[in-house]
Structure formats: structure tokens, C-alpha cells
């Protein structure tokens, strides 16, 4: 049954996924329309529930509205001249036919009885401070009261008999009594049920906030959108049930039933949808172009079936209930409402919520792109390169989002768009709804007796004055009591405020202005849509311009070369074969670089590369060196031919390092540099392709990774895994030229997985930089050390440091003194970047602040790096204090797996580890070298994922521990200083970036800065653990001895081909063999 329901919902989810895709594509349209409908429904529903009498009847109020709020009495011959109360609905005919009068009860609230009351036309009775005014029209002008009376007193209309506080007090009293009455009348057991229901509803909301913050990475907006989504469902359902289906649900039923419905429907499907969509954006392959609407569509496809299933069941249950219990109106109406809520929940999640989610993803993309750019710039990458990387690094943002991120205004446009939208919708709502009644502050809380009780009684003086009224049939409508108060200073202020609001409301209600407001709303929406689309168009345009500009430069260069080669104005046709068609995908850069590469090929004249052979005609006349120099001085070097530029370089007229800037084409610069060097260094090897240089994105290298580039060094990349790390399956790339390493680590992975995977703990995360400063005397050095160690000093330096970057946050300062030299070790967070450049900038600023601002004028900065960091050098401080990420990884390998997979023995492994990794290393006086070959694995991973390979010195610090637990092997590696980053450095290069993509940690983490780098550190530690496990097992099993013996025997004896395969089987998994291996291992260790 469950599977049937699942299958059905899986099949039905596709249309909803498409709907969500459409909504996500046009988010503002969708949000606007849904909110408009919801607002309309809200106003209607609220009016339905709180249909109260309005105190003032302006142009917007109809007589019908007035009559609904009045208590009506009529008298005719049939009633024998007795006044009979009628309702407007039942006796509207009588009310419209008979002579109709309106009686206003005006209550002048004052403590001073000497105040004169205003004279009002139509006053029929006066008692103390109360006046009754009879009118034949329902209008009572305020101007009659606001005029000063004889003694100068001015009166003003107030909402109820008292001031604001009294009103509120009255309101609360009414609420209290109403609640108290209900409580008194209710069974305590029922009350308890309702309290429990409300408590669970509150828990649902709280857990929604928590889950959305924890899993969805949204502190407020997505939670708000989820609640808004459900609120819209509720109001639309209420509107449909009450106004269309005429299935009225009393407010009390709604208040009682709502918490049950909220808890049962819940928000978990929206939460799952959000988490799914955000996960997709986080881990999606960067090389794929995925748009937000596609992400939402895919997420809906995956998670929507559950939503559909839940809501279908809900709908089915309540629809059935409404049919079954049709003779119970209350239950039937409530069941209809619940059914509608279920339907609307699905619809709105597919439209409104999907649209909001898409906007969130769009903003995330823009934000992430900006962070990438900022991080790269802070990390020392030149702005142009950072821009290129941030543009192409976007994983799903499509071109529009990529280019939108080119400037900060992208974010502003997106945010402004939403703010404007919300503002105008609320403004409209505010203007049309709340200000439509004059007494806008308490439109629904005017608890007149007309709405609460049986109506107002006819005053005695009317009953007594029957004769004064003719015997004609007559109707008197008694309006609710109107309270007036003397005008005070406070009233002037509130009046001013209310006047302006009133004026505004009148303006909005104006027949032209109301239309104009609506038009403005439409314009606002259009502007929002336009802004979003404009951003997209702009990005497309900018992108196009960028490409065009590049092409134009290259075309100009081509033309110039052609002109030079032909010697005439007619450019000679250059035949360029379709080079690179068969280019292997490896080592390819972005599309842009490929294009450029193609262009650059047309500029080359001769190369040895197979796909670089061109037939560009040689210039008929060779230009003189002086001519070339003249062209160079004009800044037109890029128009010269390669040979000509080479000639300039070889004649020392042109520096090798400036080729990129002058030629404006990095690939061409590399080619010319190679040509020039092959002559200058007399190394013809550079004229060949033995060192590859083609199909590489040098734009990313320039200013970021390398200078004087002459090509790139390909490295074989192997892969290990899947390795289960903290419950997540990971494939880990390793670039190495050392055979067996990958295979060995692979075996380690297999063993770790067989034990349930590895768990990691990250204990510290902070990069360090330790500058060296000098003071004139030891006293001053000591004073500075004490100051830096003090809370005050740390705080001041922290403030200065943190102001230099949005990512780097100073954690701690450690100091050491040596004579008058002071070493200060700054430890900071660096987000997802490895962060050495970022921290250096902060340190420099802090030191300058110390000199200029903090009173250490006599401080002399010896070096911004005083080797107290310690970077790329073995040092005990790194081993003890940690540097970068401090990670401990652990795995439990079942004894059976140790024997079968690792072909070793737990006890032998433990013994080997103690003897080799602990005692052996201690004997060697090692610092952090308590491992078998951590550096092997670490460096291979570092090379594959673009880390600084030189930092393997301290990153490889590792202590491997093994112990036996219930016959199983518990292995752990403790690595206190893994220095990694997922942005900046070598990670900006496409192949390395692709490997980070493989691990799902490329670039900055969208919600938790630094999380990607921390994850990479965990992965590195686990890879090291796999390598350690495998090598130690091999050593413990005595394979070393055995293989040596096998080799020797093989050489001495006969050719292997003559040996039957069965005869050379060395590993029998029998106890005897295992015993033999153990002995072999022991021999190996002893030897």
C-alpha cells in the first residue's frame, strides 16, 4: 500500500515540478500574484470575521455597511405602534421603504462638568454629558464638534470612551472575559488538549526556525517564506470555503482546530525541499551549467513526491470526512477547509515557495561569486584574475548570475528588487485595507454592542415621544455610541498623525489615485522584473562585450600580421586547420581559453606540435630591428609577428616577464617565451612540445600562480575511494609519480570502509604568521610582550587586524622573546582560503598600528615573517600549537578485515606501530614524524587539489596510533597542522579545481565560511590514515621480506613463464600461512 501511494505520488509530481520550474524562472511574477491573491483573500476573510461598524462614514462607506452596524427599530400599524427590532438582512425591504432616521448617541467624556458641550443640529435629547442626535441621513460631520464651544472647548472623536490605554485595557478585558467565560464553560480535559495542541504548534514553529538555520542555512527569510506560504494557503482556503463554497467555519472552531492542522501538515516538506535545493547548489559539479530553476525543479522532483503524498492523504481523509459527515455542518465545513488547505499547500509550495527559493539561490550565487572575488583579492590574486575566476567559478548561476556578480550592484539590485516588492505590496495592502476606515487604529476592535450583543436598546425618550413622530411607518437606526473628548496637546500630535494618515488614506481612496496606486504597484512589479531581467541582459551583454573585445584585439593582431605578411593592404588569407578538435579533455581550460588558444594558433608560424601546424605566409620582407623597436615603443607589440617579438626579446630589447602584458594574450606569450629561451639558453628542447603548453588557461596563472611561464608539468593523477568519511562517501584524487602509493591507499580505504568508515574531529582551525620585531632595549621588548599578552592588548590588536579583512578573524596572539627581539605569532581564521597572504596583510597593518597608534613608536619591524609561524619549515611549535587545521581521524577495522583485506594481524600491527612509528621515531629525535609515510599521501593529495606542496613539511606532521579493541584494530592519525584552502593558490587552476569539485569542496562554502577547507583537511587526514594502515599492514605482514625472497628466488631459479601459476601462489589464507607471515613481519622489524 505504501509503495502504491509512493508510486502514484512519484508519477504525479512531474507536473508540479514543472510548475515549480516555471515559477522559479519568473519568481517576482509568481510572488506578486500569489501575494495579491492572498492579500485579497486575507482582507475578505478578516472582514468576514470582524465585520464591524465603522465610526465614520466617508466616501468609501456605504449605507449598507452602516446599516449592518446599526441596531434598527421600526414601527407601523402592524406592530401596533410598538417598536420592533429588525435586522438589516431580514428586513431590508422595510428599511428601504419606510421613513428612515438615524439616532446618534454622542457621549462627551469629561471630568470637568463645567465644560460646555457643542451645539449640534438635530439634538433631540440631552442628559448630562450625553446627547442624542436624530438625523435623516447617516452622515455626521466632524466639523460640528471640532469648532470651539462658547468657553473655547474643542471636542474630538475618540475610538471609545477612553484614551488609548483605556481602549487597550478594554480590549484586553473583553478578551480576558471572553476567554475566561470559555474556560469556565469548558471541560478542563478539553482545555488541556488545546493547551497541548498549542504547545506542539509552538514547538513546530521553533523547530522550523532551528532546522532552517541548521540545515537550510537561512536565519530568517526562508523560515518567514515557509510560514507565509502556509498562511497564504490558510487565507486562500478560508476565502474559498467561506466566500465561494459558503462553508462558514466559525472563528472558535478555527482557533481550536488550527494547531492540530499546523502540527500534522507541518513544514518539513518545505524544509526538505530547501535543504535539497541548497545541497544541490553546494555540491554540484562546477563544470555543469545549472540554473536556479533547474535546481528547484530537480529538488521538487525528488522531494515533491513526499509533499504530494502527505497532502493527498490529508486531502483524501478530510474530503471523505466532509462527505461522510455532511449532516454535521461544523465538521463538514472544517473538513472542507482542511481539504482546501492541503490542495493549496501543494500548489503554493510549487509556485510561491519555489519562487522564493529560486530568489534565495539566485542571491546565494551572486553572494558567493562576490565572496570568491573578495577572497581571491585578499589572498593576493590580481583583480583581473580574480574576476576571471569568480566569473567562471560559479557552479550553477548561469551566465547571467556570473556576470551579475561582476559588480556589487548585482546584489543591490537583487535585494532592492525584493525590498521594493515587499514595500509596495504592503503599502498597497496598508493603503487599501487599513486606511479604508477612518478610524484606522481600531477598525476591528470596536467592540460595539451591535456586534457583540443583541443590539442597542431604544432609548426611553424615543418610546415616550411616540406622539412627536407621526404615525407613519418609520425606521430608526441606532448607531453605536460615539465618544468625544476634550482636545489636548497629546491629541494635537495624534491628530496630526492620524490626519496625515487619514489624508493619505483619502488620497489613496480617491478614484484616480487608487487606480494610480494600483498602476504604481504594477509599475513597481514591472520594475522589479525589469531589474532582474536587466541584470540578466546586462550580464549577457557584458559577457558578449568581453568576448567581443578579446576577439577584436585578436582580430586586429591577425589583420596586422596578415598585412605584414602580404605587404599590401589586402590581407593574405591564412589557412588555419581545425586544430584541437581531437584535443583530449584533460588539461583543458575554459571555453574562453580554448577560443583564445585557437586564435593564438593562427598567430604561430611554426611549431613542432602536431595540431599547431599553420600555413601562415611568411612576410616577404623582414623588418629591421629598429622598425620593430619603433612599433614596440608605440605600444603595438601585439601586432608584431611571433618571430619579430622573439627577435626583440633575444636582442635584449624586451624583458621576458613583460610578454603577457604587452601581447595581451597569455598563451602567445608562453609560446614566444619558449621560442626566445630556446635561442637564449640554447635549449632546443623548449622549441619542441616535450614540455606541453597548449590548451591551458594561462589567464588564471597570470598574476596568481606563476611567472615567466613556459608551459605546465602534467602529473599522473590516481584516485582512491570511495572512502566513507563521517558518513559521506568520498573519492580522493592523488597526483603522484610513486607507484604503489595509490593502490596501497586504495587497500586502506577498503579496510576502513569494511569497518564502517572513518570519523574525524577538527580541534583547531587557525593559520599563523609570526613576525619579528626589535626594540631598543630588553625592557621595551618585555613591556610590549606583556601588553600583547594582556586582554587590552589582544583586543586592540584584534580590532585592528579584523578591520583588514572580512574573512580573517584574529583568534590569538602568542609571543616569545629573545633578547630585544620579540616574536609575535598571530593565529587567525581565514575562511576557506589557506590564507597566508590574507594574514600577512593583517599582520602588516597591525604592526603599523602598533607603531603609529598603540604607543610602540620605537618598535622596529625586522621581518613580517620571523620564522615563528612556522611556514614550510619543520618546527616544534607547529606540532605542539597546531597550524592551519588540527584534525584527528579514527577508524575501527574489524579483525577479520585486517586478516582478509590487509593480510596482516591486529596484534602484529599494533606492535609494529609502537616499534616503528613511536619508538623508532623517538629514537630518531623526530618532531611530528610519528608515522609511516603521511607525507606521501598528503603531498599526493595536495598536488592533485592545488595546495601548496611546500607546506607538506608541517602538514605531514602526524602521529599514527593503533590499539586493539575487542579483537578489532582501532587506528587513528592526529595531524595538528594541515594547511589547506579551497580557494586561492593552485585551486584557481581548472584541473585542480575540478578535483576539488570531485570532493565537493571547491570555492568558499556558501553558508559557513571555512567549512569547505575544514572538510578538505578531514579528507586529507583520512587519506593519510588509509595510507598508514596499508603500509603498516604490509610491513607487519612481512611482505617486504617475502617479496625480496621471491625476487631473489625468481632470478636464481627459472623463468617465471615456466612456473605454473598455481605453484607460485604465495598467499594461502590458512592459519599456517598467517603464522608464517607474522613471523616474517617480526623478522622484518628485527632486521
Amino acid at each position: 500500500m505504501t509503495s502504491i501511494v509512493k508510486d502514484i505520488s512519484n508519477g504525479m509530481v512531474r507536473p508540479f515540478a514543472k510548475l515549480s520550474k516555471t515559477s522559479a524562472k519568473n519568481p517576482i511574477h509568481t510572488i506578486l500574484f500569489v501575494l495579491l491573491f492572498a492579500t485579497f483573500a486575507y482582507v475578505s476573510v478578516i472582514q468576514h470575521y470582524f465585520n464591524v461598524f465603522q465610526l465614520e462614514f466617508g466616501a468609501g462607506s456605504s449605507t449598507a455597511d452602516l446599516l449592518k452596524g446599526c441596531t434598527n427599530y421600526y414601527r407601523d400599524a402592524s406592530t401596533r405602534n410598538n417598536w420592533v427590532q429588525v435586522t438589516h438582512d431580514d428586513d431590508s425591504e422595510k428599511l428601504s421603504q419606510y421613513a428612515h432616521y438615524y439616532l446618534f448617541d454622542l457621549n462627551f467624556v469629561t471630568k470637568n462638568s463645567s465644560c460646555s458641550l457643542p451645539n449640534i443640529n438635530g439634538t433631540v435629547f440631552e442628559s448630562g454629558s450625553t446627547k442624542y442626535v436624530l438625523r435623516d441621513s447617516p452622515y455626521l460631520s466632524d466639523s460640528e464638534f471640532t469648532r470651539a464651544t462658547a468657553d473655547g472647548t474643542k471636542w474630538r472623536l475618540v475610538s471609545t470612551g477612553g484614551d488609548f490605554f483605556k481602549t487597550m485595557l478594554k480590549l484586553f478585558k473583553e478578551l480576558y472575559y471572553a476567554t475566561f467565560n470559555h474556560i469556565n464553560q469548558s471541560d478542563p480535559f478539553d482545555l488541556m488538549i488545546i493547551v497541548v495542541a498549542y504547545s506542539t504548534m509552538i514547538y513546530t514553529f521553533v523547530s522550523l526556525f532551528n532546522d532552517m538555520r541548521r540545515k537550510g542555512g537561512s536565519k530568517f527569510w526562508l523560515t518567514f517564506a515557509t510560514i507565509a506560504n502556509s498562511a497564504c494557503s490558510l487565507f486562500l482556503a478560508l476565502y474559498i470555503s467561506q466566500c465561494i463554497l459558503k462553508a462558514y467555519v466559525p472563528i472558535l472552531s478555527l482557533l481550536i482546530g488550527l494547531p492540530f492542522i499546523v502540527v500534522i501538515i507541518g513544514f518539513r516538506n518545505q524544509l526538505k525541499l530547501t535543504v535539497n535545493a541548497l545541497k544541490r547548489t553546494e555540491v554540484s559539479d562546477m563544470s555543469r551549467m545549472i540554473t536556479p530553476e533547474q535546481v528547484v525543479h530537480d529538488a521538487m522532483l525528488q522531494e515533491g513526491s513526499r509533499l504530494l503524498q502527505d497532502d493527498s492523504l490529508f486531502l483524501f481523509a478530510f474530503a471523505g470526512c466532509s462527505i461522510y459527515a455532511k449532516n454535521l455542518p461544523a465538521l463538514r465545513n472544517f473538513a472542507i477547509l482542511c481539504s482546501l488547505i492541503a490542495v493549496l499547500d501543494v500548489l503554493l509550495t510549487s509556485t510561491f515557495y519555489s519562487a522564493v527559493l529560486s530568489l534565495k539561490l539566485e542571491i546565494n550565487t551572486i553572494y558567493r561569486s562576490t565572496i570568491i572575488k573578495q577572497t581571491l583579492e585578499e589572498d593576493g590574486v590580481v583583480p583581473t584574475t580574480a574576476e576571471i575566476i569568480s566569473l567562471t567559478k560559479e557552479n550553477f548561476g548561469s551566465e547571467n548570475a556570473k556576470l551579475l556578480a561582476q559588480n556589487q550592484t548585482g546584489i543591490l539590485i537583487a535585494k532592492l528588487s525584493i525590498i521594493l516588492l515587499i514595500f509596495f505590496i504592503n503599502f498597497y495592502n496598508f493603503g487599501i485595507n487599513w486606511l479604508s476606515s477612518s478610524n484606522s487604529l481600531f477598525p476591528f476592535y470596536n467592540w460595539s454592542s451591535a456586534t457583540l450583543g443583541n443590539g442597542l436598546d431604544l432609548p426611553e425618550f424615543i418610546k415616550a415621544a411616540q406622539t412627536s413622530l407621526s404615525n407613519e411607518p418609520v425606521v430608526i437606526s441606532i448607531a453605536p455610541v460615539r465618544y468625544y473628548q476634550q482636545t489636548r496637546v497629546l491629541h494635537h500630535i495624534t491628530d496630526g498623525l492620524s490626519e496625515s494618515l487619514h489624508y493619505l488614506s483619502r488620497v489613496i481612496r480617491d478614484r484616480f489615485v487608487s487606480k494610480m496606486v494600483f498602476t504604481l504597484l504594477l509599475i513597481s512589479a514591472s520594475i522589479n522584473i525589469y531589474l532582474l531581467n536587466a541584470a540578466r541582459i546586462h550580464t549577457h551583454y557584458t559577457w558578449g562585450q568581453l568576448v567581443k573585445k578579446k576577439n577584436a584585439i585578436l582580430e586586429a593582431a591577425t589583420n596586422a600580421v596578415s598585412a605584414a605578411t602580404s605587404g599590401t593592404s589586402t590581407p593574405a588569407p591564412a589557412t588555419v586547420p581545425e586544430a584541437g578538435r581531437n584535443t583530449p579533455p584533460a588539461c583543458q581550460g575554459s571555453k574562453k581559453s580554448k577560443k583564445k588558444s585557437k586564435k593564438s594558433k593562427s598567430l604561430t608560424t611554426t611549431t613542432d606540435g602536431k595540431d599547431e601546424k599553420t600555413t601562415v605566409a611568411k612576410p616577404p620582407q623582414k623588418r629591421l630591428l629598429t622598425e620593430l623597436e619603433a612599433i614596440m615603443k608605440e605600444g603595438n607589440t601585439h601586432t608584431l609577428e611571433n618571430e619579430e617579438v622573439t627577435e626583440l626579446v633575444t636582442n635584449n630589447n624586451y624583458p621576458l616577464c613583460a610578454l603577457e602584458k604587452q601581447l595581451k594574450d597569455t598563451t602567445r606569450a608562453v609560446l614566444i617565451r619558449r621560442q626566445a629561451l630556446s635561442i637564449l639558453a640554447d635549449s632546443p628542447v623548449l622549441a619542441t612540445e616535450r614540455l606541453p603548453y597548449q590548451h591551458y588557461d594561462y589567464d588564471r596563472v597570470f598574476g596568481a600562480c606563476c611567472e615567466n611561464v613556459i608551459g605546465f608539468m602534467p602529473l599522473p593523477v590516481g584516485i582512491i575511494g570511495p572512502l566513507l568519511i563521517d558518513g559521506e562517501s568520498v573519492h580522493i584524487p592523488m597526483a603522484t609519480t610513486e607507484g604503489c602509493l595509490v593502490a596501497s591507499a586504495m587497500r586502506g580505504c577498503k579496510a576502513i570502509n569494511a569497518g564502517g568508515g572513518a570519523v574525524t574531529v577538527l580541534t583547531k582551525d587557525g593559520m599563523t604568521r609570526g613576525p619579528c620585531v626589535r626594540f631598543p632595549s630588553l625592557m621595551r621588548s618585555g613591556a610590549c610582550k606583556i601588553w600583547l599578552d594582556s586582554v587590552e592588548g589582544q583586543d586592540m590588536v584584534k580590532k585592528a587586524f579584523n578591520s583588514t579583512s572580512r574573512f580573517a578573524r584574529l583568534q590569538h596572539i602568542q609571543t616569545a622573546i629573545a633578547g630585544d627581539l620579540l616574536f609575535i605569532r598571530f593565529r587567525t581564521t581565514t575562511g576557506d582560503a589557506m590564507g597566508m597572504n590574507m594574514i600577512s596583510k593583517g599582520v602588516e597593518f597591525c604592526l603599523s598600528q602598533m607603531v603609529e597608534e598603540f604607543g610602540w613608536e620605537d618598535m622596529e619591524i625586522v621581518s613580517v615573517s620571523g620564522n615563528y609561524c612556522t611556514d614550510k619549515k619543520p618546527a616544534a611549535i607547529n606540532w605542539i600549537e597546531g597550524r592551519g587545521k588540527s584534525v584527528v581521524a579514527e577508524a575501527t577495522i574489524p579483525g577479520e578485515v585486517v586478516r582478509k583485506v590487509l593480510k596482516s594481524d591486529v596484534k602484529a600491527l599494533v606492535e609494529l606501530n609502537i616499534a616503528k612509528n613511536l619508538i623508532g621515531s623517538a629514537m630518531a629525535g623526530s618532531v611530528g614524524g610519528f608515522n609511516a609515510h603521511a607525507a606521501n599521501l598528503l603531498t599526493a593529495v595536495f598536488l592533485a587539489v592545488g595546495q601548496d606542496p611546500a607546506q607538506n613539511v608541517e602538514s605531514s606532521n602526524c602521529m599514527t596510533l593503533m590499539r586493539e579493541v575487542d579483537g578489532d584494530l582501532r587506528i587513528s592519525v592526529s595531524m595538528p597542522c594541515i594547511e589547506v584552502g579551497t580557494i586561492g593558490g593552485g585551486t584557481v587552476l581548472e584541473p585542480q579545481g575540478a578535483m576539488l569539485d570531485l570532493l565537493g569542496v571547491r570555492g568558499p562554502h556558501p553558508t559557513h565560511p571555512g567549512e569547505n577547507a575544514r572538510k578538505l583537511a578531514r579528507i586529507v587526514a583520512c587519506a593519510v590514515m588509509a595510507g598508514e594502515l596499508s603500509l603498516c599492514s604490509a610491513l607487519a605482514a612481512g611482505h617486504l621480506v617475502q617479496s625480496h625472497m621471491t625476487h631473489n628466488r625468481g632470478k636464481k631459479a627459472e623463468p617465471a613463464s615456466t612456473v605454473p601459476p598455481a605453484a607460485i601462489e604465495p598467499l594461502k589464507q590458512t592459519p599456517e600461512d598467517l603464522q608464517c607471515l607474522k613471523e616474517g613481519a617480526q623478522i622484518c622489524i628485527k632486521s
Partner: protein
Amino acid sequence: MGSHRERKQPQQGGPSRDPLGSVSSSLANLTRPELYSIYDSGVVLESEGIQDVNEAKYRSATAGVGPQTLRPRGKIDATTLVVLALSGIVYHELARMMHDNHKLHEDIISRPLLVGVHFLDWAVGGSLGISIPTWVGYALEGVLFGLSVPVLDRYLPESRITGTGGSGTSPRGDSLFSVLRTVNSMLGITFGIRKIKWASSMQASVAWLSLNFMLWLLLDSTVPLLLHSATLGCLVSALSSQGAGPAVHLPEVLYLFDFYFLGFLVFGKLGRYLTYRHGYTH
């Protein structure tokens, strides 16, 4: 594990079977990496490198915190027992308060629970020679109801147990929120039965009956719990209709089934949550 024959080939180094192709064995030995001599050749030519990690993933996911190699088991601690005992007492109160505006009067629904207490008094108290107070009996019933489903789960394969109703932090798919939803549903129905002016008891009991199945699909949808709740519900209603005491009519029998079906659903989910809330243990 691949065949040893394949793995052993390079070590024995015959030119025709050398992994390096036409390169002679001596050259191959020279160019072999440093680590090669240490490892078993099976490591280098491991043919089954990419093994299925599903099992490992399952272990890790079910273990929650890492390498656990044992079959998942629930943990019954003092908190579990206390909460279930309190739930048993509250459940009895709920049953006692259950009535509608027709035939269903208070105490009809709670009668089977009282019979259960008497039975416990006879079985447990009798053997120990003590009299079990009524409230202790209800508490014991709560514990029994709550633990019966996790015990049942232990002897069923995981695929049969994993439902769709939970929201997921607990291994069995029952989170606190999932339990609260079920409790809320039960309270909502109780409120509805008490407060709505039903045309007849039959109408109310049939409506509840149809709603129960939907609730199971919505809140849990695991087959064991359905079978468990339905069987016990049937048993209770059948025994009540045949037992001594005042005559019980069909609507009341249906009421009994409805109440105990949903009750066992609640206890089942609560028991699963409490038992597996810490993840699996060694």
C-alpha cells in the same frame, strides 16, 4: 577478492605476463617503484578496487558517529521506562475521558486497560505475593505497549521497518516531531469525538475508523506497526465484546478498535523514538 593467479603475475615477472608489456622483467624490476617491494602484488593489481560501499555507508549512517561494526540495537534506559510509564498513566486517563454524545460513555474505553491491570496483578503480583496498585499497573501497561514494537522490530529486516512517516533523525525514522504529530492527531480526534454533536455513535466510530488508516499512512506507514496495532486493536475489541460485564454494541466495539489502534500507533512510535534516539549501540 580477485584470483591470486592474476595478482601474482607481475611478481614472478615472466616477459609474456609482465604487466609492463614487452619490457623485460629485469627492466621492470629496476623501474618498479620503491614501495612495490613492500606490498603484496595483490595491492597493486587489485581488481576489485571499487567495492560496494553501501554496506559501509549503512553501517556508518546507522551508527551515527562512525565506525560501528555491529548490528543495530535499541537501548532501553531509565528515561525510556519513565516516559513510557507516564504515558501509560496518561493513556488511561485519555481512555477514561473518552465519550461522545451518544452511546459511548466514560469508562467503556478504559475497561480493557483495567482488565489488563487485573491480569498483571494476578500474573506478576500473584507470583511475587504483592498487590500491584492500579496506577502502577497502568504504568506497566505503558511500558509494555511502548517496548513491544521495538522488540518486534529487532526481529524484522530493516527494509520492513523503514517507513515514510518519520522526519528522520532517528535511525528508524521516528523523530520527536514525528511522535508529537501522532500524539497531536490522537488528541485532536479525542477532542473531536467529545465535542462534535454526532448523529450517532456509529457515525463517529466509522469516521474514526476510516481516519485511522489514513493516519497510519500519513504518520508511519510501516507494515509491522500496522499489523501490531491492528492485531492488538482487534484483540482488545473482540475480548471486550465477548467478555463479562455490560453488553457492548457494535459502535462501542468499533470505538474500542479505533482507540486502541491509534493508541498502539502512538506507543509504537514513542517506543521506537525512545529506544533508538541515541542511535545504534555496540
